[in-house]
């Protein structure tokens, strides 16, 4: 039963990952990533990490993917041009990826970690559930936990500053002086959702 679940989730995760890089339209890439994230949540459940699986579904497949969908809808799901600026990029990139996987697989299979070949030790019933993780976060890892909250605040402020209309307008004159063709400043007046508006 566990093996069936593992292989089903592994195929889902791998298919989603390949879908992300194979789809021509970025919108379909985002949808493939959602499949990938749900399959990973199943894998986390198999590894008795219930809280991480729940956070994966709620934070990633919920919030972050909504942000992606909004941005892809805003910039338009244009397909990238077939022109290659680096000759042989289509051929070389998969080769380098395969080489990386072979290296990692050799490193894993040749490692001297004997416990790798086991199912892991028997754990007590509450392993990885929200109560245990919450106790760890608020006792042992209190300082990193608070540091991540500051980091989140900084990221939100940074995104608002980056995507605000005022920031685009002040930088726009620099773009015009650099020779980029622009059809007047008021081009930014087109209504459209942005991260700054959504936040």
């Amino acid at each position, binding site marked *: 039963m*566990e093996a069936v679940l*593992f292989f089903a989730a592994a195929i889902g*995760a791998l298919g989603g*990952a*390949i879908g*992300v*890089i194979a789809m021509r339209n*970025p919108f379909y890439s985002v949808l493939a990533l959602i499949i*990938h994230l749900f399959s*990973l949540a199943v*894998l986390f459940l198999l*590894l*008795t*990490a219930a809280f*991480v699986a729940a*956070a*994966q579904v709620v*934070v*990633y497949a919920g919030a*972050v993917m909504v*942000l*992606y969908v909004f*941005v*892809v809808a*805003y*910039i338009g799901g244009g397909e*990238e041009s077939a022109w290659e600026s*680096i000759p042989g*990029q*289509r051929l070389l990139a*998969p080769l*380098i*990826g*395969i080489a990386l*996987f072979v290296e990692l697989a050799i490193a*894993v*299979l040749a490692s001297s970690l004997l*416990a*790798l*070949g*086991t*199912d*892991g*030790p028997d*754990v007590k019933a509450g392993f*990885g559930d929200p109560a*245990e*993780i919450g106790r760890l976060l608020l006792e042992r*890892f209190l300082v990193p936990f608070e540091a*991540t909250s500051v*980091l989140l605040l*900084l*990221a939100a402020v940074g995104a608002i*500053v980056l*995507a605000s*209309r005022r920031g*685009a307008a002040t930088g726009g004159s620099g*773009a015009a002086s650099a020779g980029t063709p*622009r059809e007047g400043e008021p081009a930014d007046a087109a209504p459209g959702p*942005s991260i700054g508006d959504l936040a």
Partner: protein
Amino acid sequence: MNIEWYIVLSSLLFAVGAGGILLRRSPVVILLCLELMLNAGNLSLVAFSRMVGNQEGQVFALVVMVVAACEVVVGLGLIVAIFRRRLPLDVDELRELRG
């Protein structure tokens, strides 16, 4: 299931993400491939935490998730800013830092 399976799957997903970053040129898809690599790292963190029977790896995975969310927010803000300035959304054409 052996922990080894999870680690091999995680390295496969990481390699797919790295190949995608080399292959694609749209910044949105490159961010998505970064997500793939971060999630592969998360999978191996959780698998190793199961292997030692210790929950601290899961806390680490949660912190990685937070950092990934921050990276997504800033990256998407940059993409929106690039789009607003009518610059091409192609990383090969965006290789100059000015303007």
